[in-house]
């Protein structure tokens, strides 16, 4: 029996199973995602203002990236809008990403800490994810009602901006306080978007990290406790290093999600005009695509997404390679060692689990 198993390991190549296991993904991806995607990327090199665009080369990229010529209002408009939105994207992303990761990590550690025995842990965990359940459109509407520019928004009402003349007189004032214009102020709206993004997503990130921590062998924590390690030590020596792979995932997805942020920046305004202080590149892509039905700017839209794609890829590669190298190598070594050990054991006769 041992020799049979040994023979199999030696002679059977399992590589084909690799292909079989990943095949469904690739078939579906090629049909439903890659094809439309490539088509869209091709649009980046096509003209604007028509639904059946012809090839024009790199002009769209030039308009977006290069300094526009004097008095070319179109180039100025496109160029400046893109860079303004680009700046917004980075600012909002940083302002949402850092607090979100920090908060989620802290909570994940608290919730998985064996030492802190808190009743109601489950309740808190469940609650933290709740904001993610509501659709973005409802969230935007809700926060507009809470933090709107109007004297009658919740925050301004609380400050007394909506007092009637009689109430103002009774309070001994000459006029009601000027309402806070959170939504139209540059930093007010940005901070609000950061807050909403954190509010919506920290539960999600936290659960992701928790599942990573839960995947860590519990005996390691037990051993650490027995050895008298405190929480900080446990975190830096055990949790954090072993969480690395899931951290990479979290970093990457938050980064991608942040750079492609769309819903809230797109919807957090009153009236028709999108708030240019919070609009992101994804909003630019959408606007160029949809704002003019008869003469859409597919070219600029496509070019902006290619640029966004390139930026994300560079950052993504950076995150990934900084974190990956040692890990993957170590794993590979481990695996080889395991196979060797298995072989050795098999040779030794009999092996079971």
């Amino acid at each position, binding site marked *: 029996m041992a020799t049979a198993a040994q023979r199999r390991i030696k002679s059977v190549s399992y590589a084909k199973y690799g292909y079989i296991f990943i095949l469904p993904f690739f078939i579906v991806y090629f049909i439903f995602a890659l094809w439309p995607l490539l088509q869209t990327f091709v649009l980046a090199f096509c003209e604007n203002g028509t639904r059946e665009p012809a090839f024009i080369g790199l002009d769209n990229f030039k308009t977006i990236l290069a300094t526009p010529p004097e008095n070319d209002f179109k180039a100025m408009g496109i160029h400046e809008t893109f860079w303004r939105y680009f700046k917004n994207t980075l600012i909002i992303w940083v302002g949402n990403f850092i607090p979100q990761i920090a908060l989620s990590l802290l909570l994940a550690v608290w919730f998985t800490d064996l030492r802190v025995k808190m009743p109601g842990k489950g309740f808190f965990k469940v609650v933290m994810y*709740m*904001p993610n359940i509501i*659709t973005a459109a409802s969230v935007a509407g809700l926060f507009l009602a809470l933090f709107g520019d109007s004297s009658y928004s919740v925050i301004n009402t609380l400050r007394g901006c909506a007092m009637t003349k009689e109430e103002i007189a009774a309070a001994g004032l000459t006029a009601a306080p000027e309402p806070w214009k959170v939504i139209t102020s540059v930093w007010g709206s940005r901070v609000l978007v950061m807050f909403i993004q954190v509010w919506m997503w920290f539960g999600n990130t936290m659960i992701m990290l928790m599942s990573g921590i839960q995947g860590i062998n519990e005996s390691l924590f037990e051993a650490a406790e027995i050895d008298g390690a405190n929480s900080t030590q446990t975190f830096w020596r055990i949790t954090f290093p072993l969480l690395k792979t899931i951290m990479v995932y979290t970093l990457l997805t938050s980064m991608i999600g942040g750079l492609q942020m769309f819903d809230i920046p797109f919807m957090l305004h009153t009236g028709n005009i999108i708030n240019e202080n919070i609009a992101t590149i994804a909003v630019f892509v959408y606007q160029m695509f949809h704002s003019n039905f008869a003469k859409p700017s597919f070219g600029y839209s496509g070019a*902006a997404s290619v640029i966004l*794609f390139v930026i994300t890829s560079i950052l993504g590669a950076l995150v990934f390679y900084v974190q990956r190298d040692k890990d993957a190598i170590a794993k590979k070594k481990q695996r080889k060692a395991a196979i060797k050990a298995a072989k050795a054991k098999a040779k030794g006769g009999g092996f079971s689990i």
Partner: protein
Amino acid sequence: MSKKVTYADDKGGYQTHVIIKSALIYVVLILLTLICLVPIWILVVNATRLHNDIIGNVSLIPGTHLFDNIRTLKENSLYNVFFSPLVGMKNSLIIAGCCCALTVFFSGMTAYGLVVYDFKLAGPAFVFILAVMMVPTQVTAVGFMKLLINMNLLDSYIPLIIPSIAAPAIVFFMRQYMLSSFPLDIIEAARIDGSNEFRTFLTISIPMMKPAFAVQAIFAFIQKWNDYYNQSIVLVSGKKAQLTMPMMVQKVIAIDRNADYGANYAAIFLSIIPVVVIYIVLSRFIIGGVAAGGVKE
């Protein structure tokens, strides 16, 4: 003797330390809970108030008009032409349920293929999956649209469900998860025991991946439930029997003339009930029952 006292003191110190820490954690958690729940609570409360009470007034105390608002949704022709909670829930359940199952299963399978097997294209395949994760989704719409028209798939649930087989981000998650906590020796062992590859995947690996599966299942379900953007691209004919919950809610929110805010909030309220219920049912996985999966030897 003195030693003993010190020990006791130490222990007392440790104990108070834990108590202080727990208290601190509690304060933070309660604060976060309030921040998480108050906006949602306002939404729920508004669903129980009448239009004219809601305009310009926020209240934390529920009203008594929930059923009046639901009746408005049912009877007012502004709403009932497209809003029917039962139909919407059924449709959304079909879509989100199928998507969720397919996404989790196939993502697990793909990740398994990438991690467990050594094959030439494993590296490139993974890089490819990583790369496509970075693609902005907004922009693929036009190509997707054209594809649907060519394949005659407009107004069908197929293009909403089938593509969820290929979810790069979830594959990535599963892969990372397996790398960090999946003992590959078990597979070798199973092989030696004569289990074929698919059986190993189905009966050994999936149970071991339960935490990852559970988490991604919840996320996938909620994300697909709320995925208004794709649904509105695919289901263009607006047939009531085919509309999903978020599409109905979106239409409700979009009514600008003659809207009844009470009814609007009631619609949002109805739309989140099923997700909340499903979430709470599945949340036992989040709460920690799944702990360390199959890693324990």
